């Protein structure tokens, strides 16, 4: 059912009805920390689904071809390849251990029979080639069938080796290793639409790489203050525009998003959009920036609502994820309590704000204490950009339909795991009488958080990572 036009409106209505499809991962309560999924990503066609975990492993699932005898069930995702992408390292100069946890995986568009993806931990990015081998050559001249070398002097006749089919073997090999370019922890990677370059962002810098060149990268954003004592803001996420190869965006811990155009300047970290073309200004604010060439920037920031100001305002305004829409007209940002959709042409405020779990606003102090307030949730767009999704606590995740303005809370749990069982909407009760089937805020399990989600690029299939389990849900076939 390729190209079904995800989110597309059947005649009846826009509402998507999600059903359970599959769940991957161990069932026991005792979760090994290495198995915790840390990133999920579909490839460009949606046939491959990659997950990375805290143990540095990448597991790729492939969608099975449609089964003619069961036309109503769409292809299932089964394990295609597993490999160890990163190993733990030790930085001897700083006496620090470098975690092997995979922070992000990004696929490259497919150009030949092999698949390529970038995976990154805190410090090193690797380009992996995943290729299939289903034939092997037999009848070598210099080797026996069991691999032993034959003595060349004994060979009296030559033969041409023949390719014979064999069981499918999927091999993953690291083709490039991009290392030693980041002092701080890498939080994002993003492949450019030119398919030749990509960016990697850490807390204070963003570097631009060419996929073929591993010993050099260009620094395009640097917000490190001259004096580290004045550090008040860090980069939290970055992404290239899906169509314009010169445009990228990065978000900060203060809730601002900066849209940068690489054509204007070699370095893209000018502060204020208010200053037009002119000589470089000296920035005298707390976080000093070295004087730069000018750039053409937009800074997206919603003015703060003074009535809701608290000590936690800044923390909850910190943006954990930023994603362009498929069309490239909009972008979506996720902060702690809400998701906001921005029109790239309007910097003053978002065009839409969706509350994810507003009932947590009164619990911010407790969430600060147990560090949950620092959780970084991701968000994603549906294939047609008409719906968006993000995760929450208690294994809940939230879907927002931008056209109908309706939202729903669903749960990823083993209890709802009958095949093709519809997911029942969940509700959190904020106070007063708790109705049946509602769950009260104080009963939410903050251990079970859905930080990583992915949406198939064309169809209504979503992958939701709940700690060490990967749930796959599909839209009910109408």
């Amino acid at each position: 059912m390729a190209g079904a036009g995800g989110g597309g409106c059947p005649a009846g209505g826009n509402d998507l009805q999600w059903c359970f499809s599959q769940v991957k991962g161990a069932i026991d309560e005792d979760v090994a920390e290495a198995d915790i999924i840390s990133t999920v990503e579909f490839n460009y066609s949606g046939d491959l689904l990659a997950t990375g975990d805290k143990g540095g492993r990448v597991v790729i699932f492939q969608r099975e071809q449609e089964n003619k005898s069961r036309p109503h069930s769409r292809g299932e995702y089964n394990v295609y390849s597993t490999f160890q992408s990163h190993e733990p390292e030790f930085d001897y100069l700083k006496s620090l251990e470098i975690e092997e946890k995979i922070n992000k995986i990004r696929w490259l568009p497919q150009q030949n029979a092999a698949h390529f993806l970038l995976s990154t931990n805190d410090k090193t990015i690797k380009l992996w080639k995943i290729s299939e081998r289903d034939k092997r050559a037999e009848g070598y001249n210099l080797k026996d069938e069991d691999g032993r070398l034959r003595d060349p002097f004994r060979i009296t006749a030559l033969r041409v080796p023949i390719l014979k089919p064999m069981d499918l073997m999927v091999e993953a090999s690291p083709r490039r290793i991009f290392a030693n370019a980041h002092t701080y922890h890498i939080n994002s990677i993003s492949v450019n639409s030119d398919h030749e370059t990509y960016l990697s962002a850490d807390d204070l810098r963003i570097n631009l790489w060419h996929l073929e060149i591993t010993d050099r990268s260009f620094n395009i954003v640097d917000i490190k203050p001259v004096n580290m004592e004045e550090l008040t803001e860090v980069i939290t996420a970055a992404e290239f525009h899906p169509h314009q190869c010169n445009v990228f965006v990065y978000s900060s811990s203060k809730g601002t998003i900066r849209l940068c155009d690489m054509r204007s300047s070699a370095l893209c970290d000018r502060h204020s959009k208010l200053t037009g073309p002119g000589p470089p200004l000296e920035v005298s604010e707390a976080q000093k920036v070295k004087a730069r060439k000018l750039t053409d920037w937009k800074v997206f920031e919603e003015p703060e609502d003074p009535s809701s100001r608290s000590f936690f305002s800044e923390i909850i305004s910190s943006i954990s994820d930023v994603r362009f829409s498929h069309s490239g007209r909009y972008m979506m940002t996720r902060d702690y309590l809400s998701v906001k959709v921005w029109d790239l042409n309007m910097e003053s405020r978002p065009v839409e704000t969706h509350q994810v779990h507003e009932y947590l606003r009164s619990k911010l102090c407790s969430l600060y204490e147990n560090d949950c307030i620092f959780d970084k949730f991701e968000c994603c767009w549906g294939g047609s950009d008409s719906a968006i999704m993000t995760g929450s606590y208690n294994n809940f995740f939230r879907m927002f339909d931008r056209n109908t303005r309706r939202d729903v809370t669903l749960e990823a749990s083993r209890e709802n795991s009958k095949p093709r069982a519809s997911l029942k909407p969940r509700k959190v009760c904020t106070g007063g009488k708790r109705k049946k089937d509602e769950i009260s805020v104080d009963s939410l399990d903050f251990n079970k958080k859905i930080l990583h989600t992915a949406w198939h690029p064309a169809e209504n299939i979503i992958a939701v990572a709940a700690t060490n389990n990967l749930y796959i849900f599909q839209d009910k076939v109408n």
Partner: protein
Amino acid sequence: MIWRGTFSLFFVFFFNFFFQRLFIFGTERETEHERGRGRERGRHRIGNRLQALSHQPRARHGARTHRPRDRDLAEVGRLTDCATQAPHPSRCLKRVPGVAVLQGRMFARGLKRKSSEDAEDADGGVAGLPAAPSYTLQRQSLLDMSLVKLQLCHMLVEPNLCRSVLIANTVRQIQEEMTQDGTWRVVAPQAAGRAPLDRLVSTEILCRSGREQEGEGDCPLPDPAPGQAPRRPQSSPWGLDGSREGRGGFQKSLDHIFETLENKTPGSVEELFSDVDSSYYDLDAVLTGMVGGAPTGPGLPAFAPTAAAPPSSTCRSDLGELEHTVEILVET
């Protein structure tokens, strides 16, 4: 004797970093009589905590499944009320072997005491109490928590810069507000004795920085140690009259924290606490003559204690000794 000495050293080092609700080094220190009381209480607590410690496994260095710096899954369960509940001990323990269990329990204890005194929770005021003290206490509690989190940041093998920056900004915000209120004060030594037990202790950072910045001599101790007695009252009914502001110094110390995060070398973390007063550790006679060390190996978070001996010179050489001490304590 040596056992007791090293064992006490161990706790002293850890206590220094968890200044909130440090009743052991409470204001009773200020007078001999009070000092005695503090020590008594301290001993009792030490005993309890040691028991707690000894039952917990030590996180193995490099163990895949238990990374001290990661938040343990078991820890974060149900949402709890800030003021009446502490982080679950097992979480803290896995993160920083031995140390944070103390923090967890202390935090709880302190908060419970505060709660029992004020019957207040951090999420909202309590009916019957005037709004101002309740907000102040909330703010104070938040400041305490934030400072502890920042301290823990030092000790983690890989501090998360974003988290540290956000916490530091929160602290700055509170500090600015308190400065405007006029409640951000450092107490003169004479009046310190009357400071309330449950006040956040002005951290070593504040005292030290204030002294450095403003060159005034009325910091309570010549070389104050981290986590010592409350010296900075908030809008306390006791009406303490220290009026010196540690603001600039505080800022400086926050900055220092970032410098440290940036240079993550064993020495740099020590620098942060390099002028800790040795006399502060005089919990009982056995402690005299201790030497300090700054363990920074991967298995043991880099909290930088200093003690009797002038730090930096002896710190590195005593690394092994302290590590050995910790091993003994934790594995009993």
